[in-house]
């Protein structure tokens, strides 16, 4: 398949009215979700089940002096109270993070962020568990908190991690990529250099369903079953085995229906471990389900990058180099979930979608008295931060050159003939036609008319301050998704490859077992369509099984938009193997040579005699019959695959946002948003569009309202949905979507993954639009009315600190 060839849509309809393969169809899972029949972790109720609740620290930084649990233990419905001391005796007070650090399960020496877990109560019902939390008496000795990342490395900053031997400061790591020397030379030659400080503030994935687990240790069989909110059930099983020393074959992780993940459900949280310990201690199943505030305050945050960018260019606007220094706020424990070799994730893809030879980045990570996390919220391993950086810097350059930002981008975009393209920081972009995508977005937007309208509006606004200012913002993004390959990418030593098993039953109905775990993306539909596309059997005849480690093959799970690029490929390869085997069996049944068989969708037939052939269902029955099969062909019809991706896939897109800003009040209204995405062929265009809609809303949210700030004492100021604002339909325009299709040359069906594209690409477009309206080069998001008004006043505020 070449980079411009697009598979023709299959118009055949199945008996169920669905496309035979790719195309729009209703989601199979919605039949249960729309009836309220989804089964989430909190729907799991087991006989004799107990309920856990976590006591959390009110302080951001304090020494634990004493904990008195006697009153809580005396509560008539309380079964047990677990503290850090209890866990220390089991050697479980600390657990490893996914990034070479340790984190406290329950605090033993100090608390290091507000909301940190201090004690765990297990009671007969959730009300009593919560009531008993108030009966625990904890004495704290408050310490000064490190809140501002910019001061975390000050010589007099309190040392947060004095639990680590020899620790004298809050420095975690320095990491760099690219060529500093080449950058230096390019900057020396440049006509124009623009520098800017850019904060991508701390935000939270905030899935609709919070995190939780139900653990049941069967004392007789020694089997541990955990129903839990995880995007990566197999990885969780292995980590429990490694950390707690439990035998892996006696651990079953069940990830039932998941109400959104966005990265929030990758990590292992103390609550999960505590439900397991609780079940071991009490001998009964223990449920722990966090509330909204707990989710917002203590589980994986996202972003929190303080960036300084320098961009160099000729006066004609040809970009020569980009460099960036990042101060990364990792919170109190280094708990980011990145592939091992990439402590800053894929941030060094920050050169973006443009053609220039020199780039360099340096990332310094620090501890602060905040919750841990750091890869979450649909960021594609920090590509969101990277895209935001480069797309803001390009706009800063356009501002200085007084050049139209679309023209500047068009002048510098990679050209189609440059693919596969190796970026200055070492990424090999697989395929793309960037100018085509940008032209398409500008066509849909009516870009020239918008600029004309803007000029008229600006003229009118000069005499009338109530005339809203109009802004037009662009962003162009390139993503890299679908991690591995396994030789370059692993998490905790587990290579990033995923398994898949496809079995056709005798009647031709299929089961597909996946290692990845849907959180709402529609895997049960999309993966059935992949099998349908290859085998020509109706998608309603393919049952997709996932989320239960006892019944699915090993793999690393769903995050970083990796399901379709990795497991989608595995499913396609498995289906292809079944199709190949079916051909051998059909040739035996039809008593002809394999070479005489020709394929039409769902059926092998004899060349020249289309009436003589067998459908997949007939072949499946034959495969299970007494038919004598040729040597080397086993009975039954199945295949199993472990797919090790040869490279990432590189979806891309061009976004244009139009805003109106009331400069008297600072209120920003998103008037239009045009999104042209290229994720290769679209398996189910409806699902793709839904993913994009969600991501665009995320982008509007981050650009205009979402932020977790902290006050001087380290109090979390985003601990509820009245404080941490997610956008509603009223803040979102009716999205205008377009597409181009550039298949990935190395993926079996050319698909690239789209789950995170819009979240990655859209924030910069909204921010660029707001700043274009204000005619200001730079200010930090989120553009709440106050932030916007203060930026317009020339007195911008920092988004990460409390407003004073």
């Amino acid at each position, binding site marked *: 398949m070449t980079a411009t060839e697009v598979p023709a849509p299959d118009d055949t309809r199945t008996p169920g009215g669905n496309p035979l393969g790719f195309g729009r169809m209703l989601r199979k899972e919605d039949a249960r979700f729309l009836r309220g029949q989804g089964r989430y972790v909190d729907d799991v109720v087991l006989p004799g089940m107990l309920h856990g609740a976590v006591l959390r620290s009110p302080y951001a930084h304090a020494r634990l002096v004493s904990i008195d649990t006697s009153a809580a233990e005396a509560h008539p419905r309380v079964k047990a109270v677990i503290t850090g001391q209890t866990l220390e005796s089991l050697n479980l007070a600390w657990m490893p993070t996914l990034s070479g650090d340790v984190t406290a399960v329950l605090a033993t020496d100090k608390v290091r962020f507000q909301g940190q877990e201090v004690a765990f109560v297990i009671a007969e019902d959730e009300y009593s568990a*919560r009531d008993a939390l108030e009966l625990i008496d904890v004495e704290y000795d408050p310490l000064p908190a490190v809140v501002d990342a910019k001061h975390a490395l000050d010589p007099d900053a309190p040392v947060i991690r004095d639990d680590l031997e020899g620790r004298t400061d809050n420095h975690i790591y320095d990491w760099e990529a690219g060529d500093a020397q080449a950058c230096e030379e390019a900057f020396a030659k440049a006509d124009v250099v623009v520098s800017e400080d850019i904060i991508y503030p701390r935000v939270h994935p905030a899935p609709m369903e919070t995190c939780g687990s139900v653990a049941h240790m069967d004392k007789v069989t020694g089997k541990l079953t955990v129903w839990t909110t995880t995007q990566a059930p197999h990885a969780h099983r292995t980590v429990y085995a490694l950390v707690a020393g439990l035998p892996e074959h006696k651990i079953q992780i069940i990830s039932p229906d998941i109400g959104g993940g966005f990265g929030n459900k990758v990590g292992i949280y103390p609550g999960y471990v505590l439900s397991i310990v609780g079940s071991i201690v009490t001998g009964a199943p223990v449920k722990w*389900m966090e509330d909204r505030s707990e989710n917002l305050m203590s589980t994986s945050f996202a972003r929190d990058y303080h960036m300084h960018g320098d961009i160099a260019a000729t006066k004609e606007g040809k970009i020569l180099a980009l460099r960036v220094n990042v101060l990364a706020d990792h919170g109190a424990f280094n708990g980011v979930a990145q592939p091992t070799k990439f402590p800053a994730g894929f941030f060094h893809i920050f050169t973006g979608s443009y053609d220039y030879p020199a780039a360099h980045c340096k990332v310094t990570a620090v501890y602060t008295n905040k919750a841990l996390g750091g890869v979450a919220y649909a960021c594609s391993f920090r590509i969101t931060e990277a895209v935001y950086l480069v797309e803001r810097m390009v706009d800063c350059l356009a501002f200085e050159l007084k050049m139209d930002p679309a023209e500047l981008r068009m002048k510098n975009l990679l050209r189609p003939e440059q693919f596969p393209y190796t970026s200055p920081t070492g990424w090999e972009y697989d395929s793309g036609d960037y100018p085509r995508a940008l032209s398409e977005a500008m066509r849909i937007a009516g870009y020239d008319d918008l600029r004309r309208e803007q000029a008229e509006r600006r003229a009118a606004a000069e005499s009338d301050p109530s005339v809203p200012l109009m802004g037009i913002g662009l962003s162009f993004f390139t993503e890299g998704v679908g991690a591995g390959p396994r030789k370059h990418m692993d998490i905790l030593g587990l290579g990033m490859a995923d398994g898949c098993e496809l079995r056709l039953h005798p009647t031709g109905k299929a089961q597909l077992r996946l290692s990845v775990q849907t959180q709402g993306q529609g895997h049960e539909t999309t993966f059935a369509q992949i099998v349908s596309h290859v085998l020509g059997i109706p998608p309603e005849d393919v049952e997709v099984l996932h989320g239960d480690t006892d019944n699915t093959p090993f793999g690393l799970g769903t995050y970083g938009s990796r399901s379709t690029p990795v497991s989608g490929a595995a499913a396609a390869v498995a289906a292809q193997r079944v199709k190949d085997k079916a051909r051998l069996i059909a040739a035996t049944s039809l008593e002809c040579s394999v070479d005489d068989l020709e394929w039409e969708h769902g059926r092998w037939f004899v060349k020249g005699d289309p009436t003589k052939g067998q459908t997949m269902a007939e072949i499946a029955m034959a495969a299970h019959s007494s038919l004598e099969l040729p040597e080397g062909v086993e009975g039954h019809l199945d295949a199993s695959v472990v797919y090790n991706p040869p490279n990432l896939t590189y979806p891309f897109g061009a976004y244009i946002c139009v805003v109106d800003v009331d400069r008297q*009040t600072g209120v920003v209204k998103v008037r239009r948003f045009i999104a042209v995405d290229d994720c290769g062929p679209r398996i189910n265009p409806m699902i793709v569009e839904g993913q994009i809609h969600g991501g665009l809303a995320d982008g509007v949210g981050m650009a205009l309202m979402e932020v977790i*700030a902290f006050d001087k004492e380290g109090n979390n100021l985003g601990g509820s949905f009245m*404080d941490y604002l997610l956008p509603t339909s009223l803040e979102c325009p009716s999205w205008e979507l377009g597409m181009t299709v550039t298949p990935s040359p190395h993926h079996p069906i050319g698909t690239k993954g789209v789950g995170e594209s819009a979240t990655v690409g859209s924030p910069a477009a909204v921010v660029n639009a707001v700043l274009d309206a204000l005619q200001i080069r730079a200010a930090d998001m989120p553009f709440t*009315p*106050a932030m916007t008004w203060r930026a317009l006043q020339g007195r911008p505020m920092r988004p990460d600190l409390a407003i004073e």
Partner: protein
Amino acid sequence: MQVPAPFEYERAASVDEAVALLARHGPEARLVAGGHSLLPMMKLRLARPEMLIDINDLSDLDYIRTEGDEIAIGAMTRHAGVLDSAVLAEHYRIFAEAERVIADPIVRNRGTVGGSLCQADPSEDLSAVFSALRGTAVIRSESGSRNVEMRQFHTGPYETAVGAAEMLVEVRLPIRPNSGSAYEKVERRAGDWSIAAAGAFVQLDGEGRIADLGIGLAAVGADHFTCEEAEDALRGGTPSEEAIARAAAICAEGCQPQADQRGPVDYKRHLVGVLVARALTRSAARARGEAA
């Protein structure tokens, strides 16, 4: 799951029964109507009433009607009822404009006028509206009923003139001919509490001068949700751009907003000025019978 501390529950079938239950259970008893403020606070354990008296059966307090030259609004009228009221649409556009930006439809279907006023949140939009309109609260107890001016109703944040064994049953408003009203609010997102909000009514005499007016302010620490100094400055004059700007400036100076994540003090004061001016300008235009 967030769960409240233990509490007792009773359901009142009449106003008499509700006030009798209040009298019996004392100051640790609370009435619950829509519950959209009280229940979240209880779940966060910021409110811990020992007894909840549910008054959702008191549908006889759900009305909006004209009585002579007054409008009477029952305490159990839901926000959605206020938003849809033809009576209020005819006399006071301010209500629909304020209600449209209060929370969301789900909350408006349950939350009540009485509950909102008695919760006495400093950011409550209806408190600013009734203060602007100089309404009168009707409060019942076992011994009878008494009236309190809305501008005396709120005695502090989350505090009202309603005693422990009393219940707000109605709010009354004078009908004002030749008047117009409006509400302006800026929020970070639909459904958020306001950063600042301003409501107004303007009543004109035959010469186009301001015979009477009212200003309401929410979320900015204004005494009794209003600014009488600004009203006095405008009363009797014409609603010119300059006069309105002067009054708006007085409001901006006179209020006492606090910095929080919704904005710093300088911005909130600035916003008060902008919103008061817009609300007064639109009210005056409506009083003149002009569109919008």
